[in-house]
């Protein structure tokens, strides 16, 4: 009996967590199908006649598509670069001893300790002077500095969990350092790489502060456009929520695709 009651408690706890994290999504999606009156109704209406008006407005607004395109380009490029540069760095940190290793490691982590807004003004001035303002490149570079530490951090841990014997077996088999990285560490580190890629993508996709500060008209990202609807005296909640729903879709799809690499026990069978 004790077992089943503890299981019940466990299930209850899980349900709470799931409701807590999914309710905002439900609210956003539900609101995107409501009229402005239904949205502002108090007490809230749970049953309503759904409307597609909000989506019609969003899809007729060319800004939204352009912004989603910008966001896709920037988030993909950032994620690709972060993994491309971060994974080899993580391999080095996980497996080699070299001078300054501890300092380098701390430097990577310390990049995450700084509150982003502290750097907003200096980065803006830098972008202004280098003529990078309102380009894709400036956001890719800025996001890269924030994402690289996450990739390095997660992947280093992941690579450390790969038995060193595998690397030595591969060395004896005649594999060079790069081949070992490519054929042993990348496939076996896939879960960590996938997680860090998702983090990196979501971060770049959601980022609002730097996107607001560093872009004007050309390179507005999706969150910037969504918030730009909040102007004047009117808050078109339905349109904002519909835009939000459209924005969340790509990142959800990306996470679902990548998450199939997030399997545990990939190194099972390697040893013992």
């Amino acid at each position, binding site marked *: 009996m004790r077992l089943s009651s503890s299981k019940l408690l466990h299930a209850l706890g899980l349900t709470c967590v799931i409701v807590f994290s999914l309710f905002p999504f439900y609210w956003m999606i539900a609101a995107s199908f409501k009229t402005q009156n239904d949205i502002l109704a108090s007490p809230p209406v749970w049953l309503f006649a759904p409307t597609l008006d909000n989506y019609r407005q969003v899809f007729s607004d060319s800004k939204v598509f352009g912004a989603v395109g910008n966001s896709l380009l920037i988030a993909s490029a950032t994620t690709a670069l972060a993994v491309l540069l971060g994974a080899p760095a993580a391999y080095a940190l996980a497996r080699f001893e070299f001078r300054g290793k501890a300092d380098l490691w701390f430097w990577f982590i310390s990049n995450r300790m700084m509150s982003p807004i502290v750097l907003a003004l200096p980065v803006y001035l830098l972008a202004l002077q280098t003529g990078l303002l309102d380009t894709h490149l400036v956001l890719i570079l800025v996001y890269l500095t924030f994402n690289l530490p996450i990739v390095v951090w997660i992947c280093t841990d992941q690579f450390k969990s790969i*038995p060193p*014997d*595998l690397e*030595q*077996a*591969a*060395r*004896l*088999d*005649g*594999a060079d350092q790069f*081949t070992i990285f490519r*054929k*042993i560490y990348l*496939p*076996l580190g896939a879960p960590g790489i996938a997680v860090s890629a998702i983090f990196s993508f979501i971060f770049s996709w959601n980022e609002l502060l730097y996107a607001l500060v560093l872009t004007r008209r050309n390179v507005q990202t999706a969150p910037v456009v969504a918030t730009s609807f909040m102007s004047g005296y009117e808050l078109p909640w339905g349109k904002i929520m519909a835009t939000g729903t459209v924005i969340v879709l790509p990142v959800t799809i990306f996470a679902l695709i990548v998450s199939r690499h997030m399997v545990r*026990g*990939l*190194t*099972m*069978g*390697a*040893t*013992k």
Partner: protein
Amino acid sequence: MTFLQLNDIRKNFGEVSVIKGVSFSAERGEFVVFVGPSGCGKSTLLRMIAGLEDVSGGAMSIDGKDVTYEEPAKREVSMVFQSYALYPHMSVFENMAFGLRMAKLPEAEIKSRVLEAARILQIEPLLERKPRALSGGQRQRVAIGRSIVRNPKIFLFDEPLSNLDADLRTQMRVEIAKLHRNLGATMVYVTHDQVEAMTLADRIVVLRGGLVEQIGTPTELYDRPANTFVGGFIGSPKMNFISATVEQADGARLVLNHAAFVGGHLQLPFAGAAALKPGDKVTVGLRPEHLSLDAENPVLSLSLDISENLGGATQLYTTGAGEAVTLLVAGRPPLKPGDKLRVGINADHIYLFDAQGLALRA
């Protein structure tokens, strides 16, 4: 001609000296076993032969070529790891083919070599499986298969059987012996298990604390241990040691004193007696399997503490004047704890060591 030559090989990890100058050589086709207690440096030594550990001093050559600072892959050695170290994301076939692919062999050649190795090790039905779908014994075979396909100059084994259960261990031990006979390959094998060492080796290198204690055939080590350490390490159950005092040493005869001896004395013929003088301390080594209960001239008077029935044989734990003595006797003698035993031994089977533990030779 010497095939594998180690010359005063040393290894330091920082301040700590792990291998303190090891020299030995192996002939082509020889099966050499490094044996010793944990921490004796045997695995480190093996990994140095493989090139996985840097050498801090000394020189090493394989087939006449100096390989002291050579890359692991260029030494043409292969290694079976204690952990097997199979690539978990590759099939059995790909695990075995990996080294050949690295060597850029043609696909047909890779296939035929892998299939041949799989046939020898009887793992043909497993070729498409991933390591996680294999049992411990099967993984072991794949690990061995991976080293066979490369046709190396030397096979290195790092405690390959220690993860297997007792039955499988015996079975794989026999298979490794067969493999050695069939391939005629040079093998260096590390173990802490003296039974594996005795049964597999052409020659055994006994290591302790980073130094060689003795090198010899299994029989030499058993019959003529260089010191008390080797005497105690080789043979199971362990050799019994009794610290005695020389009472009389003249010509070819020695009389030793210890309260466990019948009458307090042990008299034995010993050609090297001239090197000893009355009052010297010596250690008498007696193997449990050499002691007998029904001797005409018993030498030890012991009292039984406990007996273990092994089925066909019985192991007796006894004490004689404070010294623990183990006996291994055939059958099941009807004895009970507290019984007084008078135990004999053939004088040829008595080992003598000096105060420093070094063997006294006739």
